[in-house]
């Protein structure tokens, strides 16, 4: 360090001061850790000996189960990543509502039609959908159970023409990202 310029040495001394932790932030770390669990690295192995008939039955069951998973994964993927549309940018919308039975995304892009864009329910009551949108300013809302309109709590709020709560997103050209 002695070979360093004196102004840099002074800077290093100032940068080395250790900040006093905010007790609230530290408590939040401990609380978050209480929710987490270490992942297991070692898995136990079991040997299963089956009769030929049982083996065939298991094989059929496995084929059926994996087919279902593949179909589900394909549908889910199609929802997350719809086919690209020229000049449009895929935008993912997310809304959290654990008790909701169904949620729709409405906005300028679908004429505010609650039946046009249904969202998919994920783990923990997280609903999501990906929509290809024209670049520019887009106003939108979430409609819960076909009745209650909600603005996006994570986005800027605007006054909708119909007096309902709605939000605004600014969509960029895909290539700019």
């Amino acid at each position: 360090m002695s070979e360093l310029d004196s102004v840099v040495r002074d800077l290093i001394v100032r940068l080395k001061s250790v900040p006093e932790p905010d007790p609230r932030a530290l408590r939040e770390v401990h609380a978050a850790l209480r929710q987490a669990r270490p992942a297991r690295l070692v898995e136990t192995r079991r040997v299963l000996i089956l009769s030929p008939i049982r083996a065939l039955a298991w094989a059929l069951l496995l084929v059926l189960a994996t087919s279902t998973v593949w179909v589900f994964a394909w549908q889910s993927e199609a929802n997350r990543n719809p086919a690209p549309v020229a000049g449009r940018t895929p935008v993912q919308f997310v809304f959290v509502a654990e008790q909701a039975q169904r949620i729709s995304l409405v906005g300028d892009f679908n004429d505010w039609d609650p039946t046009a864009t249904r969202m998919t329910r994920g783990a923990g009551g997280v609903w999501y959908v990906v929509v290809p949108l024209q670049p520019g300013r887009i106003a939108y809302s979430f409609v819960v159970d076909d009745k209650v309109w909600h603005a996006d709590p994570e986005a800027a709020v605007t006054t909708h023409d119909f007096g309902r709560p709605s939000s605004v997103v600014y969509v960029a050209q895909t290539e700019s990202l």
Partner: protein
Amino acid sequence: VETPDAELVQRAQAGEAAAFDVLVNRYYALALRYAWRQLGNREDAEEVVQDAFVRAYRSVRGCHEPARFRGWLFTILINRCRTHAGRNRRRFLLFERWREREQPASSSAPQTLRLDGDQEVARALASLSPRLREAFLLKYIEEMSYEEMAQATGVGVSALKMRVKRATDALAAQLKKELHV
């Protein structure tokens, strides 16, 4: 007498959550210092540090060298800082594009870092690129050896030496300019 890191890590690996709590209390402030200096503001740093500790806890059984827990934790922390900075930069660029289009008259000097704390120090650090800042902080503030830095960052030793040299030269020039030396 302070319980060694290695023992605490092994106890956490065996399922004793309280042992990891001790590690959090031991390294929280140091992790916060690095993240704060790297990201430029405390709020973002606290968020990233929490995320890093949760990730470290989840994968504590993958810490194969418990005695060098600090280096292992910093590997996670450095990656979280990089991800956070990248996300902020993308958000900033999106906002800038919108602002240029909607409010072309109100353009101001671009600044991707939101700064707080010691403004002079923060400004000097913000003048460095994230890569140079990272190398400088690990070398002179966290006092890591180049081998430890290479392990934590995934960057080669010679490249790190070059980054540290460039960072110190740039900081010296920036600080002298501010001080009119």
